[in-house]
């Protein structure tokens, strides 16, 4: 039963890693590519680590996998936020299909006050 769950997690993780890599290649913009990067990390890496930790019967693998997953869940949103904020402050343009930019609106409103 646990083997079936871990193989399912490994398959889901491989699919999400491939999909995120394809999105990283195809999407038009830094901010859209951050979405693909999040798919790779949360869908791919976390599922793969949990699946690999469940596959082995020993406890130490599972505990260390859970520690790594906890650490990833803490750090990855902070890193993505820092990257997107740095890109926006650096002046990286949005793609042509993007329709809303709340941060720029807020800065314009603050500068008009």
């Amino acid at each position, binding site marked *: 039963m646990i083997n079936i769950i871990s193989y399912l997690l490994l398959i889901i*993780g491989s699919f999400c890693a491939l999909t*995120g*890599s394809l999105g990283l290649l195809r999407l038009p913009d830094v901010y859209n*590519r951050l979405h693909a990067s999040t798919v790779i990390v949360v869908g791919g890496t976390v599922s793969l680590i949990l699946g*690999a930790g469940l596959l082995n019967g020993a406890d130490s693998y599972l505990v260390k996998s859970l520690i790594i997953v906890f650490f990833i869940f803490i750090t990855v949103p902070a*890193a993505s936020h820092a990257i997107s904020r740095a890109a926006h402050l650096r002046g*990286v343009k949005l793609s042509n299909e993007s329709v809303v930019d709340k941060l720029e609106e807020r800065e314009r409103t603050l500068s008009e006050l």
Partner: protein
Amino acid sequence: MLLLVILVIFIAAAGCIIRAILGPTSSDRVVAVDSLSSLMIAALVILGVHYEAVIFLDVALIYALLAFIGTLAISKYLEGKDVGM
């Protein structure tokens, strides 16, 4: 099975490397290298389970920490401010 998953991870990593080479702005490269390092963490954990060596998981934990610190430092540098270290 595990080596097949490793192969899939390396195919996905090839896409990240292509984006890191092509990327028009430096933020694209930072995003690509960040996701590449997370894929390598997953590869380290799976290799550790395959070879039954627990030390690979410790290496993966330290690598996750260092990749996070590196990403934060590079993005603070790209903002044009003091890195604060």
